[in-house]
């Protein structure tokens, strides 16, 4: 069957048509006789429009971008294979250029991703732009309070917004200006371009796209014209630079806001009160935040005594920190009316219950004390405890004595019962208040625990109050060995007649 079909197919259909055999090779093939006279041309004949049968071809016929390769036939005739390398060169050039471009953009992205600091990011943009994109580069930040900060590779500074040249004003408004001779003119007139002998041929003022508004403006100058390829690359670069600058500006702005709020929630510096010395340590569970649900407060009173407190609101992070701010504020305000720790706790309890929506289950635990210097250089401490870990007394005989007071949580029950008592500190003795972040610190061998804490403080009465607090923080963190932890707060009060 197959044979029959084959035999009936006309032979002419299987024979190659003119120029067909070598159509895809990309080469022209020229057959010449021994004298160089062309006998036939095949393959990619359009490469040789003027070469037909009868034409003469010399010994070394290279012309322009055509490459000729000779193949001798046994009878003296010879073949020329002719190839055009222009496209190849172009393709290789384009490939290399593209590689360089994406390499540059990739390294730009890496470098721009490093910093969240606006000035460092602007400096990185300038450093990346020279000399790849321009001979000089300058970045301008969006105006702030009438001033515009700028960065060049050799310097940085600021100018009044009103003194910006018009192309920069346009770019700052997001109206992009391209290179044209008048940009050079205008920048020169405004005194923005460098001495006349170095005067660039072209300048480019381009806005760096940000979040909605431009994140800044890039000014590039060059001793050569910007080509279309240059402009495409610059545009790509600018979009990356804009994202980085906008990110850094946003971060700086949020950090400014956060740190303002944070400062108001950080523990206040410890005051000086005659006859006593204080030491404290604080470590928030979310360490970068530095604020949390633990708090301490020391309030010197006008009669030479002082109120001191350490507490813990339920929860962690910003929400907890905000609540500690409220509690500390209540404590400060109410201490003007009431100095007895038990009654003061009851007032804080009422205040919290009053300001509360029903489903709010937030509560606080706290030790609140009043310290009054005694004639012998010791201190009389009146303590009140609401659901908090009992304070520890570091005695002169090196022993550690817990004050057995517990009481109910604060901010939960209208009829809460807090525990109160009076203890004495002899000169040189210390009272330590701490949060459960210390005793519940989880190490490789379980929780740190109250026994280890008491052991660690044994014999520490000789230490200044600050050193005692530091020691508790140190041992707790060592115990944790880098593990996550709850907020940690320590407040030490020492009867210090010499201070």
């Amino acid at each position, binding site marked *: 069957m197959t044979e029959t079909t084959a035999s009936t197919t006309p032979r002419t259909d299987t024979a190659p048509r003119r120029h067909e055999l070598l159509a895809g090779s990309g080469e022209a093939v020229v057959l010449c006789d021994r004298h160089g006279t062309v006998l036939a041309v095949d393959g990619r004949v359009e490469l040789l429009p003027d070469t037909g049968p009868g034409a003469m071809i010399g010994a070394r016929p290279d012309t322009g971008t055509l490459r000729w390769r000779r193949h001798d036939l046994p009878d003296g005739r010879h073949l020329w294979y002719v190839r055009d390398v222009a496209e190849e060169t172009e393709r290789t050039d384009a490939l290399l250029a593209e590689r360089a471009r994406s390499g540059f953009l990739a390294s730009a992205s890496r470098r721009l991703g*490093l910093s969240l*600091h606006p000035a460092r990011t602007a400096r990185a943009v300038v450093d990346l732009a020279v000399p790849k994109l321009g001979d000089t580069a300058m970045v301008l930040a969006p105006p702030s309070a009438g001033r515009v900060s700028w960065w060049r590779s050799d310097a940085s500074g600021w100018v009044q917004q009103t003194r910006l040249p018009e192309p920069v004003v346009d770019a700052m408004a997001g109206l992009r200006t391209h290179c044209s001779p008048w940009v050079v003119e205008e920048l020169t007139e405004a005194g923005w371009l460098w001495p006349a002998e170095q005067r660039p041929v072209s300048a480019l003022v381009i806005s760096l796209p940000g979040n909605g508004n431009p994140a800044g403006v890039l000014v590039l100058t060059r001793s050569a014209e910007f080509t279309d390829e240059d402009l495409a690359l610059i545009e790509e670069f600018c979009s990356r630079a804009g994202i980085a600058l906008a990110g850094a500006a946003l*971060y700086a702005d949020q950090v400014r806001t956060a740190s303002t709020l944070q400062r108001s929630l950080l523990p206040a510096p410890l005051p000086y009160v005659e006859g006593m010395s204080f030491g404290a340590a604080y470590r928030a569970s979310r360490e970068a935040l530095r604020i949390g649900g633990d708090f301490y407060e020391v309030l010197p009173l006008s009669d030479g005594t002082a109120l001191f407190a350490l507490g813990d609101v339920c929860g962690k992070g910003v929400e907890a920190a905000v609540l500690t701010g409220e509690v500390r504020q209540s404590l400060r305000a109410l201490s003007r009316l009431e100095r007895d720790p038990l009654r003061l706790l009851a007032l804080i309890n009422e205040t919290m219950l009053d300001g509360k929506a029903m489903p709010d289950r937030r509560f606080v635990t706290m030790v609140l004390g009043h310290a009054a210097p005694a004639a012998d250089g010791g201190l009389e401490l009146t303590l009140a405890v609401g659901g908090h870990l009992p304070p520890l007394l570091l005695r002169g005989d090196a022993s550690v004595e817990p004050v057995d007071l517990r009481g109910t949580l604060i901010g939960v029950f209208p009829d809460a019962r807090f525990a109160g008592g009076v203890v004495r500190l002899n000169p040189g003795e210390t009272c330590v208040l701490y949060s459960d972040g210390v005793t519940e610190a989880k190490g490789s061998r379980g929780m740190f625990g109250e026994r280890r804490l008491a052991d660690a403080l044994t*014999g*520490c009465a000789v230490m*200044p109050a600050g050193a005692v607090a530091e020691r508790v923080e*140190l041992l707790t963190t060592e115990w944790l060995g880098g593990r996550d932890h709850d907020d940690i707060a320590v407040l030490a009060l020492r009867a210090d007649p010499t201070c």
Partner: protein
Amino acid sequence: MLTAERDKLFALLGNADERGATAFVLDLFEDGTPPEDLLLDLVAPVQVKVGDFWATNRWSVAQEHAATHISERVVAALSARTPVSPTRGHVVVSCMDGEWHALAARLVAEVLRLRGWRTTFLGASVPAAHLVSYLHQEGPDAVALSCALPVRLPHAHRMVETCQRTGVPVLVGGSGFGPGGRWARVLGAAGWAPGAREAAELLERRWPPEEPPRAQLDHLVDDEYPTLVKRREELIEIALAALREEFPAMANYAERQVEATIEDLGHLADFLAAAVYVQDSLLFTDFLAWMTAILDARHMPPTSLIVPMRAYWQALYDFPRARGHLEAGLSLAQS
């Protein structure tokens, strides 16, 4: 600085006399001693002596702690007396997380401040997250990191990398980086200075560095370090069992003594892991020499180090690098 003055300050620290110590140093300042000399030639060497007294058991840990605290207060008091308007760049000085020996770093910060740098001292044991957010916020010209103990080097490396990723070049210092700062280069820090004066000179003359060196940690591909960290508790158990076999008297140890032993075994494992991290037996043998001196001061035999090292060596049969360091340690301890 005269020996008499150092002795006087040391005595005041020994009595935990904060007021006396502060007044003594401030008086020397009023009498014309340059503050930099007071910091580096008086406070610093006296603090070294405090450390020695603790290590050799002549002072209790409470005494050492009180003295260190007072030294810090003395430095703060002197700082308050010597305001300087900054004329140079901004340097952030910080102790790494878990690094509580803050005085040396504080002295660096103070010397830089006195020499016209705007300095920010972030304090002891600064959490990495806090330091990084601070660097992003401030964009300083340099961050100076202190590391007092080589056992913290793996952590130091992460911190150096993290800081460098914010684009801020890192200067390191502290005895943790080894003799001549040999491990600072291994970790790829941009600069190392043995002391406060050298740090100031480095920042004045050769900063920012051209190109920070690349970390030389190619040996870490063998995974010995992370595996050691993961097996830490298991290794301690093995060593504890070996010790119990060698010293039957341990059965009568109080819980506190057992905990102290476990802590020591943990140090041994941690220093071994750090030596594996930087691939240098010297880190491990230095620790052993120090530990032997401490044991000696406490009248304990070096056998209590040799037994756990042998136990680690046996357990770590497929850890050629760790074994190499243990062998170096054993030959030192047995000599």
